[in-house]
C-alpha cells in the first residue's frame, strides 16, 4: 500500500495528542466555555449554543488506569476507567461543565465516581430513555429543556430559540462537509484511508466546531479530486462501541484492509447526520438523538442496528465486517452474539475483536485481521 497522505491530516493528528487540544485552549482563552461530554446520546448541537462548545471526553495516550481502578474496579470498561483516570489527574482542567448520559452501567458509575472524587461545579445527567415512542420522546424533550435551562442559569448563556438555531446550523454545516468526505469512501479507490477519516472525525468531536471547520474544508478541497493509487485486499466496515484511537484502524489497514465505513460510537454512520428542525429546536434535537445513535442500549432497535449494517455493506461495497468491543462491555458483548449470527447468515464475513480502550496487542490484532482477510479469500 502506498504511504501517500494528505498534507492537512497532520493538523488533525496534532489535535488528537492531548485531551484538550490547542483549539480548546484558544477558545477557552477567548472566554468560551468547554463542556466535556460523553456519549453519543448527548446532543452536541445543544452544547454549541452561544459561548458553549462540546468536547468529547477522550483519553489519548492513556498509559494505565491505576487510580481509577481503585474506584471503578478493573472489571469495568477501560474507556470509563481511562477518562476517570484523566479526570483524577486533572487532565481536563479547562472543562467547566460535564454533561453525560447513563447509557450503560459503566458510564453511570463513571459519573458517580467523578462526582464523588472531583465534585465539579456543573454536572448534568441526561436521563435518555431506552426505547422510542411518543411518551419517551416527550420525556427526552423535557430532559433537554431541563439541561438547556440549567446551562443557561449556571453559565449565563443564551439558550433561546435563535441561539439554538444558530448552533444547529453550525452542526449541520459540520455534518454536511463530513458526509461529503465520507461519501468519497464509497468510490472504488477512496482518496483517504479509514484511519485518516477517523482522525478527522475524532479531532472534530474534541474541538470547537467553528475553529476546526476551516481545516476540515481545506482537507476536503485537498482530497476531493484525488484518485488513490493505494492497493487494498478487502473493503471493511468497523462496527462497535467507543473507538477513539485511529491507530486501531491503522493496524487493520496495515494488513491490506481498507476501512470504508465506520459504524461505531465515534464514527460517522449514522453519527454525523444533520438536524432537521420543524418547529421547536429542542424537540428536533430529541428526535435527532435517537436517529444518530445505534447503541445496543436501545432495547427495541436490534433490527434497526442490523439493517443499518446491511445497508452500509451494500452502499460502501463492504467485503467484511469487523466488530470491535471494549472488554467488559455488556451491551455490545451480549448484543453482538445475535448480530454476528445474523450477519453470517446472510453471507457477510465477520470478525469479532475484544479490545482495550487504548490500542494494545498490535501483533495479535495484525494476525487476526490478516487471517480474517485470508479467510475471505482475498
Amino acid at each position, binding site marked *: 500500500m502506498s504511504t501517500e497522505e494528505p498534507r492537512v491530516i497532520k493538523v488533525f493528528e496534532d489535535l488528537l495528542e492531548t485531551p484538550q487540544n490547542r483549539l480548546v485552549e484558544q477558545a477557552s482563552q477567548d472566554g468560551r466555555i468547554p463542556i466535556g461530554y460523553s456519549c453519543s446520546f448527548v446532543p452536541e448541537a445543544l452544547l454549541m449554543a452561544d459561548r458553549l462548545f462540546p468536547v468529547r471526553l477522550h483519553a489519548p495516550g492513556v498509559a494505565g488506569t491505576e487510580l481509577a481502578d481503585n*474506584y471503578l474496579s478493573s472489571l469495568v470498561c477501560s474507556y470509563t476507567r481511562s477518562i476517570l483516570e484523566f479526570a483524577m489527574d486533572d487532565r481536563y482542567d479547562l472543562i467547566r461543565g460535564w454533561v453525560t448520559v447513563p447509557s450503560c452501567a459503566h458510564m453511570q458509575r463513571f459519573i*458517580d465516581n467523578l462526582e464523588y472524587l472531583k465534585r465539579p461545579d456543573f454536572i448534568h445527567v441526561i436521563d435518555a430513555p*431506552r426505547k422510542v*415512542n411518543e411518551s419517551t420522546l416527550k420525556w427526552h424533550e423535557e430532559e433537554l429543556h431541563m439541561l438547556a435551562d440549567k446551562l443557561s442559569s449556571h453559565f449565563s448563556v443564551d439558550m433561546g430559540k435563535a441561539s439554538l438555531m444558530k448552533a444547529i446550523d453550525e452542526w449541520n454545516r459540520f455534518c454536511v462537509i463530513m458526509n461529503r468526505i465520507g461519501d468519497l469512501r464509497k468510490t472504488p479507490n477512496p482518496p483517504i484511508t479509514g484511519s485518516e477519516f477517523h482522525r478527522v472525525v475524532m479531532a472534530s468531536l474534541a474541538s470547537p466546531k467553528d475553529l476546526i471547520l476551516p481545516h476540515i474544508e481545506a482537507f476536503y478541497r485537498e482530497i476531493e479530486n484525488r484518485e488513490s493509487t493505494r492497493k487494498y485486499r478487502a473493503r471493511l466496515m468497523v462496527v462497535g462501541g467507543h473507538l477513539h484511537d485511529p491507530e486501531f484502524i491503522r493496524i487493520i489497514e496495515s494488513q491490506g484492509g481498507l476501512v470504508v465505513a465506520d459504524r461505531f460510537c465515534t464514527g460517522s454512520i449514522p453519527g454525523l447526520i444533520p438536524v432537521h428542525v420543524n418547529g421547536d429546536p429542542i424537540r428536533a434535537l430529541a428526535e435527532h438523538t435517537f436517529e444518530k445513535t445505534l447503541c445496543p442500549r436501545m432495547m427495541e432497535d436490534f433490527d434497526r442496528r442490523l439493517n443499518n449494517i446491511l445497508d452500509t455493506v451494500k452502499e460502501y461495497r463492504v467485503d467484511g465486517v469487523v466488530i470491535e468491543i471494549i472488554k467488559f462491555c*455488556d451491551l455490545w458483548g*451480549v*448484543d453482538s452474539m445475535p448480530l454476528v449470527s445474523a450477519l453470517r447468515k446472510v453471507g457477510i464475513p465477520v470478525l469479532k475483536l475484544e479490545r482495550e480502550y487504548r490500542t494494545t496487542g498490535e501483533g495479535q490484532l495484525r494476525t487476526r485481521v490478516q487471517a480474517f482477510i485470508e479467510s475471505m479469500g482475498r
Partner: protein
Amino acid sequence: MILGDIAHRARSFFNKIPYAAGYALRSTREIVHDMTSLSNKDFLVYAKYWLLIWACIAKLVVKRGPGFVRELARYPWMLHLLRVTRLMRRLCRGRKGLYLESICMTIYTVSTTLAENLEDLFYHQDRLIISEEMVPPDIARAMGLKVWILESMALLLPFLSGESDLKYIDEAENAGVNPDSCSLPKATMGMVLKGHMPKGLAMLSSNMPCDAGMASYSLMEKVYGIPVYRIDAPYNFYNERAEKLIAEDLLDMIAFLEKHTPGRMDWKRLKDICEGRNRMLELELELWDMIRIRPAPLAAEAVFLSHMWHVNLFPGHPTSIKLFERLVEMARRNQEAGVPATENERFRAVLWNPPFPHFIDIFNYTERTYGVTVINDSMTFHRHEPVDTSSPDTIVHGLGRTIMQGPMVRHTRGPAENYLDDIFRTVKQFDLDMVWVANHVGCKSAEALNGMLREMCRERKIPVLILDYDLLDPRIVSSDNMINQVEFFMENVMRAGRLNQQDRPA
C-alpha cells in the same frame, strides 16, 4: 466401531461405581450425622416438611402420569429439583426450634408454588407468557395468563446443586456471549439456546436490572420469534414525572398482552392480587420490626429466601401470604420467649447484592463458627409504599412505583446514593455490626461502587467485607475461597475468635 463404543461406555460406567459408592456412603453418613444432631422435636418438624415436600413432588408426577417422562425430556433441569429436601437438610444444620421450622416452611412453600408453576408449563401453554424477572407477574396473572419467569430456574437450580448451571453458562459462552457478563443472563440464555425453557405466546422484558440482562432479550426474541414488550424504567425515578411515564408504559403493556394473547384485564382480580401484595408487605415490615431487635428471633433464609421467591414470583398468592403470616407468628413467639434465632448472635450483618446461590450454606456455617447472623439483604430490603387499590389508575401507578423502587432496580438506576444510602440506612435500622458485600464479578454496576463504599464505611467506622464470588458459577471463586475470605475478615478485621471448630460445608 459400535462395539468399541459400547465397551468404552461400559468401562466408564464400571469405573464410576467406586466413586458413586463413595458418594452414597458419604451422603448416608452426612444424613445420619445431620439427623442425629437434631433434637427429637426438631426431627419431627423436619420429618413433617420432608414428607410434605415429597408428597407435593409425587402429586405432580402422578397427576401428569406417563406424560411426565416427556416433560422431563423437555425440561431436564427438573431432575435437580429432586434435591430440594437435601437443600432443606443443609440449611437446617445447626439451627433449631422455630428458626429451623421457619426455614423448613419457606422451602416447603417454595416447592408447592413451584409445583403449581410447573403445572402451568405442563397444562397451560395456550395461556403462557414468559417474563423477565424484574417485570412483576401481577398484571399478566390478573389477565388470566400464566407466567413463567425466564430467569427463575437459572437462579434456583444452584441452590439445589451448585454446578447445575454450568452447562448452560458454557452453552451461552460457546455461542459467543462475552464470558465476563453476569452469569444469570448467561445461564438463562444457555437454557433458551438448549431449548430447555418453554416458549410462550409473548414475552415481557425490561431495561432492568442490568445491561447484560436487558441485552439478552434481543437473543431471546430471535430464538423464540414471539412478540416482546419491554418496560423502560427511567434513570431518575423518585418523582411524579417518572411514575407517570412508567404507568403509561404498563398500560401499553396491558394493551400489548390483550393484542397478542387471550388474556383480558380483570381489574377486580388485579386489585385482589395487589391487596395480597400489600398484606405481604405489611407482614414483612412487622417481621423486620422484630428482627431489628437484638437478638433477632428469625434471620437469614427465613427472611431473604421467603422474599426472593414469594415477593418476586408469587406476590399476593395465598401460599405466600400464609408463609409470611407464619413467619411473623414464629418470630413473635421466639421474641416473647426470648429465644434468638442464632444461639450465639455476636455480629449482625447485612448482605448487599445477591446472595450466594451455589454456596448458600455459608450463612449457617458463619452463624455456627463466628456467630454472624445475616439480618437482611439488598434483595429484600425496600421502602415501598403499599399499592393504592382504590382505582385502576392508582393500581397501575402503585405497581409502576413498586417496580422502579424495588430491590436491584433502584440500586442499579439513578445516582450512587440510591445504592449507598440504603446500605447505611439498613445498618442503622437493623442495628448492624458489619456490611457484607456480595461482590459478584459479573455485576459491574456494583463493582464500580466498591471504592466509594470502602471509603464511606471507613469514615463511619463500619467494617465491610467485600466477598468476591460469581453469582452462579462456582468455578470463578470456589466455596473454599469464599470461606477463606470470611475467615480472614473475621479474624483479622473483626478480631473474632471461633465459637467452635466446624467442618467446612462441602
